[in-house]
């Protein structure tokens, strides 16, 4: 088993390594302007510089009026940016999913709620969150609020649609069995319908957090002055293509980490589910 896993990892590394090698080779041959395409080595150096603190410990302490070694170690620009982006994703997602979940549950369970709300949501759903950017700035100004608004909007619809579908697809046999056992009202909803809908809801959340992650980068390019999206746009102004690529790779890594975390949560919450092997 263990051997197998290492083998898989090794195989998975082959293509990226070859791609980087070709990239390095092309760059070192001098065929392209290094401002257009810097070499991987250059990007790596930039990434490390971006990760490490800007100042040495003593200067940093003086500038900040004290602080521990650990705080200094995470004072690098990349870490501040990554945390800033992550914060916006998490808050925006919680707001969006937090609104979508109760609305989706009631729309899935009640025909009346569905009839009242569905037309409005169907109209709003195709409007991409990016189209709200002008309005969001008018309404919320600059800084985190418009970004969080846009992210919440991006996370809202996938969670909503999947929650509605999840409640509607609950197998009638579970409802019959539960009614036979005497379940009704809140017990039926919380102990039978909701858990039966969880696989759908989690799928919606996974899509929703993916959308949130796309929206955060875009919104940082417009309304905020830190975060990974802001940083790669800023780097463009200075023609720092190595920093642009370093920022993009960080976005990729962060996205991967979020998805891996969601996957873990998924596996835990759905440990009863037939389709999963773990």
């Amino acid at each position, binding site marked *: 088993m263990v051997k197998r896993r290492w083998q898989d990892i090794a195989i998975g590394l082959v293509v990226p390594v070859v791609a980087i090698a070709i990239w390095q080779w092309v760059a070192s041959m001098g065929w392209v302007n290094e401002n257009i395409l810097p070499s991987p080595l250059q990007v790596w150096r930039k990434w490390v510089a971006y990760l490490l603190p800007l100042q040495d410990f003593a200067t940093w302490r003086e500038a900040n009026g004290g602080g521990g070694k650990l705080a200094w170690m995470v004072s690098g620009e990349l870490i501040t940016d990554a945390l800033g982006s992550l914060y916006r994703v998490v808050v925006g997602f919680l707001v969006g999913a937090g609104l979508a979940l109760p609305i989706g549950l009631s729309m899935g369970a009640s025909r009346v709620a569905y009839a009242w709300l569905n037309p409005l949501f169907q109209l709003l759903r195709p409007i991409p969150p990016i189209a709200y950017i002008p309005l969001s700035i008018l309404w919320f100004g600059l800084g985190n609020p418009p970004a969080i608004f846009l992210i919440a909007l991006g996370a809202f619809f996938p969670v909503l649609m999947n929650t509605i579908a999840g409640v509607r697809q609950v197998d009638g046999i579970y409802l019959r*069995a539960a009614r*036979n*056992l005497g379940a009704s009202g809140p017990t039926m909803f919380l102990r039978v319908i909701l858990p039966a809908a969880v696989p759908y809801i989690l799928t919606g959340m996974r899509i929703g957090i993916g959308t949130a992650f796309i929206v955060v980068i875009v919104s940082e390019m417009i309304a905020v002055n830190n975060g990974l999206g802001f940083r790669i746009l800023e780097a463009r102004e200075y023609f720092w293509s190595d920093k642009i690529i370093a920022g993009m790779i960080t976005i990729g890594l962060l996205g991967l980490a979020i998805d891996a975390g969601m996957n873990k949560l998924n596996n835990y919450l759905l440990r009863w589910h037939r389709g999963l092997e773990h």
Partner: protein
Amino acid sequence: MTAHIVIDNVSKVFDGDGRRMVALQDISLEIPHGQFVCLLGPSGCGKSTLLNAIAGFAPPTSGRVLADGVPVAGPGPERGMVFQEYALFPWMTVEQNVGFGLEIKGMARAQIAARVGELLKLLSLEDFAKRYPKDLSGGMRQRVAIARVLALDSPILLMDEPFGALDALTRRNLQDELLRLWAELKKTVIFVTHSIEEAIYLADRIVVMTYRPGTIKRDILVDLPRLRDPAAPEFNALKRELGLMVMEEQQRHHDAEIKAAAVD
């Protein structure tokens, strides 16, 4: 003693896109306390429809069902149902499934745990208490479903082809288990099956139903001593007699299907 379950002139008609289908026509039955009744017939004879009417899932179009003299108005824990598809809640462990009905009743946690423990022992499920249904075989799942219904301590047990999806050996095993429980707990059982042998093996009384409209073709008492031997001559004589009756209905089912296909 009055009958435990009275089925009084029950009819059930399904109306769908202009077609009218009479699933049950004027069914009347009286089932005394503690009787093990099998409803036997080919698919489409309305035996499950009748069971659903007794369970309260689908009320009859006309006529009524009485349980303990009270008209059935909806499903309830006094008429526990075991489904062919097990219908265990996959997000609950075995013990949570078995305890769910008691939880709904509002029983105290400690009492539930004790009762669930007893039931798991009764059905040899102790080692599976913390497992999820997906980790169990079909036979084990159906044991859990039976334990879940027994937890309610309902005087009436309704079983809709509960062993239909199991292999022959597991099936016999669970049939014996069911007979043991029935003798011990003295429940009234209504058991739907299309297996003639299963009906003879289990029942005090076999009600053979006709294919559309569903009516009672024959209502016979089986007075062979238990445990019954499926190889015994009396068993086989009964099997032959019932077999002819059921095959007649099966043939009508078959002809109707051919005719329907020709019309479409």
